[in-house]
């Protein structure tokens, strides 16, 4: 009896050891480089800005030196309508990007899902392949395409000139920002949509056709509602990164096209007001959480479809 017991304890000890050997290092690394920095940022949002940028000390005995914790940055955020406006604008841009991506991605995903099995993988690969180019390169490409000397601007302005209208600038405009956002995030919409559409049973459409439903009705009554989970995960994958994007407005937008991300970048690298930058980051995090929660909730509500 006794040796058996000890063997058991030994093996359970080995199991426990293995558990910590495997999970310990990544747990520790991410605790230090993800969890701790996040906590530091929450704390920083309640601190005073330092005299020369950065943060004011938490503790100080020198009279006249700002120190300790404060709600000041949060009050500041809500006291100036500009910041709320930038948040609203970012939400609008994210919403518009998501809708345009959905509009472009749906026919493509549908076509891939209804193609013969053999060609599907290739068609999906062709959607991912542009990812093989650097993010900045993909944005930069639109600097060329939308530039004042490019064919697109020339053509549009030639038409405008025919009607005696003033020429437009495509680059460094909200339009350019939207095009860039859609371009960079489109595959994030196509892939989950395709994964969903591929699973649909074609029998359903045949049955509907036998019951006299036309193509339009078959799409809106069957395919579209069934694809809701795919739409929602695609929407979350597009909406969330767009909400925090700073590089695209920075490169393709004009001076007036600041989004949340640009505001945050400005606080950390420009004016060096770290507490306010942290506050903006916390607000962005809350916005992201709200969107993720909404997508998950809507997804649960639509579960009976699938």
């Amino acid at each position, binding site marked *: 009896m006794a040796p058996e017991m000890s063997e058991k304890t030994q093996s359970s000890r080995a199991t426990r050891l293995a558990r910590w050997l495997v999970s310990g290092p990544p747990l520790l690394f991410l605790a230090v480089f993800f969890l701790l920095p996040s906590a530091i940022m929450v704390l920083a949002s309640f601190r005073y800005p330092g005299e020369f940028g950065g943060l004011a000390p938490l503790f100080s005995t020198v009279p006249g030196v700002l120190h300790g914790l404060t709600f000041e940055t949060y009050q500041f955020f809500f006291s100036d309508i500009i910041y709320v406006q930038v948040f609203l604008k970012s939400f609008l841009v994210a919403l518009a990007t998501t809708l345009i991506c959905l509009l472009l991605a749906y026919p493509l995903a549908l*076509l891939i899902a209804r193609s013969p099995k053999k060609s599907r993988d290739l068609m999906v690969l062709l959607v991912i392949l*542009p990812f093989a180019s650097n993010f900045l390169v993909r944005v930069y490409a639109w600097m060329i395409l939308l530039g004042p000397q490019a064919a697109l601007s020339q053509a549009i302005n030639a038409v405008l000139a025919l009607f005696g209208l003033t020429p437009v600038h495509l680059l460094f405009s909200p339009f350019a920002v939207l095009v860039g956002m859609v371009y960079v995030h489109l595959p994030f919409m196509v892939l989950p949509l395709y994964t969903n559409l591929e699973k649909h049973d074609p029998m359903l459409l045949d049955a509907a056709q036998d019951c006299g439903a036309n193509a339009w009705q078959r799409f809106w009554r069957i395919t579209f509602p069934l694809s809701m989970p795919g739409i929602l995960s695609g929407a979350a994958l597009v909406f969330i990164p767009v909400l925090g994007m700073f590089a695209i407005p920075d490169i393709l937008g004009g001076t007036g096209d600041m989004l949340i991300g640009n505001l945050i970048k400005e606080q950390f690298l420009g004016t060096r007001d770290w507490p306010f930058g942290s506050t903006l980051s916390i607000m962005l995090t809350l916005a*992201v959480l709200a969107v993720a929660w909404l997508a998950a909730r809507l997804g649960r509500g639509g579960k009976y479809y699938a």
Partner: protein
Amino acid sequence: MRRGWRLWAAALSVYAFLYLPLAVVVVYSFNDSRLNAEWIGFTLRWYEVLLHDREMLLAAGNSLFIALVSSLAATLLGTMAGMAMHRYRIRMLAFMVLTPVAMPEILLGVSLLLFFIQVLNLTLGMLSIVLAHITFSIGFVAVIVRARLAGVEESLFEAARDCGASQWQTFRHITLPLILPAVVAGGLMAFTLSIDDFVITFFTAGVGVQTLPLRIYSMIKIAVTPEVNAVSTLLMLLTLTLIVLASRFAPDALKGKA
């Protein structure tokens, strides 16, 4: 089949939308003109300029070094995380592995900037970039490895245990050979992510060190020359190769990305 025809037309124009901009970048990298406006004639001049651009070469070297070191570390930690997530229910681990993948990059960038300067009192540079890249790559490797493990019969491990294999022997002779393709694919993915990263590097690089994306950024912010097209084309070729390699090792890995 009229409807099928319309679907094809819509899909083809989306493909065109995806590829046309990149094609323009590649074509203009061979264009014998300072302006990215019209085709003048074929030249390799911009690639030659690139070869003599010391700053660019230095940035490329930095990028390669950072990608190599960070992807090795991220592969090790990410494989562990993927295994742990598959085998044990550690909520905290799943949360910490998946959140950095899902949230906007800028948040990780600025929080690491704060952390490196405020807490570690680190001068931003190579080390801070490598640490940041490991942090965001772990999740991608872990997801790929976990997906592979999820497809493995649990009975294989039970059989190994019943035959008296120790934890280490089970890992060495059963688990590792099974997940190796996913580990390699995850490593290549981490390498690609690192080479390509702009946002997080932008916040954690400081002033001293430039990477390829940072260099490209400052070039397109200041003055656009066809040299950018040339370096972009080469970069496309590199990442394309890596993606093809990754898809060879784990065909499902690419789908797991989104």
